[in-house]
């Protein structure tokens, strides 16, 4: 593989692990979106700071891809936020913020970049196991379910040249999960058949596999990386 792969939300957590995984695997230029220049970890990662919810955000990323001078072969829509509350108490602002970042940014960036993506390219959308339902996350769950819908629609519309899949992480050791009170987190871990949180690197490995020809006959699917939690 040789070309450019764009990873959004690459400053930390799962996105950072994905960017590092991709950058470590060979002659691929990684464009990490949301990375401040001082956070760039490898010279193979080109940092771009841009608000993907702004009208011109996606075009800034496209221009950066074009400036790289090699084909666009992959896109990982990872940027995401949470604003949790029970439905009865959820504010208009918290609903809109989560939908704009988790869904709107992925949709607009995919629409901006897909026309210039090479045949054989791949898009991986980071959903969440919360798309199956999760207490106190009406907005987040809706946004991630919609990302699954987006994945299926793009898989159909961009076939046969480009494959589109989703990865749905469960409880992963990251800033987002470490913000959960320890007592609650311990109960969540106890309900996971593999008895631990996943690591960002384990998610990155699955994303990498979906980006490569190793998964060349898979499109429109959702792979849950959750330690078996969907069964327990």
């Amino acid at each position, binding site marked *: 593989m040789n070309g450019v792969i764009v990873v959004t939300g690459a400053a930390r957590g799962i996105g950072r692990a994905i960017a590092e995984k991709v950058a470590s695997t060979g002659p691929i230029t990684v464009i990490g979106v949301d990375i401040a220049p001082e956070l760039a970890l490898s010279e193979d990662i080109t940092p771009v700071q841009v608000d993907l919810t702004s009208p011109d955000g996606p075009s800034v990323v496209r221009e950066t891809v074009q400036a790289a001078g090699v084909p666009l072969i992959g896109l990982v829509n990872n940027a995401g936020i949470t604003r949790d509350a029970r439905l009865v108490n959820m504010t208009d602002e918290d609903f*809109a913020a989560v939908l704009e970042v988790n869904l709107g940014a992925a*949709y*607009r960036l995919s629409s901006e970049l897909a026309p210039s993506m090479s045949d054989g390219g791949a898009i991986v959308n980071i959903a969440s196991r919360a798309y*199956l*339902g999760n207490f106190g996350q009406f907005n987040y769950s809706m*946004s991630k*379910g919609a*990302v699954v819908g987006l994945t299926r629609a*793009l898989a159909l519309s961009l076939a046969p040249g480009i494959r589109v899949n989703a990865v749905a992480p469960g409880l992963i050791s990251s800033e987002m999960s470490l913000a959960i009170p320890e007592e609650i987190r311990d109960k969540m871990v106890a309900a996971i058949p593999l008895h631990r949180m996943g690591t960002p690197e384990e998610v990155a490995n699955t994303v990498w596999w979906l980006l490569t020809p190793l998964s060349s006959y898979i499109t429109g699917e959702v792979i849950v990386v959750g330690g078996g939690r969907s069964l327990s």
Partner: protein
Amino acid sequence: MIHWAQGVGEDWAGVLAELTRAFELSRAAAQAEVSFVYVVRQDDLLGRRGAGNAMVAAGLLSAARTAALEGARKGWTANVVAYDEDDDPSSVQTWAQRLLEAGDVTGELVRVGPGHVGKTLA
């Protein structure tokens, strides 16, 4: 409350407006401790009618599952009915009404018609 998802185009503003409308109706129902049902097209759950409609349908399904968890503590339910293009609307409405009245079924997707057979689980 029975909410029929409206068709949207490929414009993000339209998608967000439709999801926001569902959120506002659902929040009002939850605050009143009233059960609700979303009605979507099976085609849209599979992504066959474009990204906009797919995002709305799949987003509503996930939202209903989360709402079901919250409503279970208060005695109200949240479910989804998916239908095929050729289905009789009155049959779809009947299933939605049944789910509203059932009380002990929640977080469920009921698919009217055979269009889902052999397709991916939503």
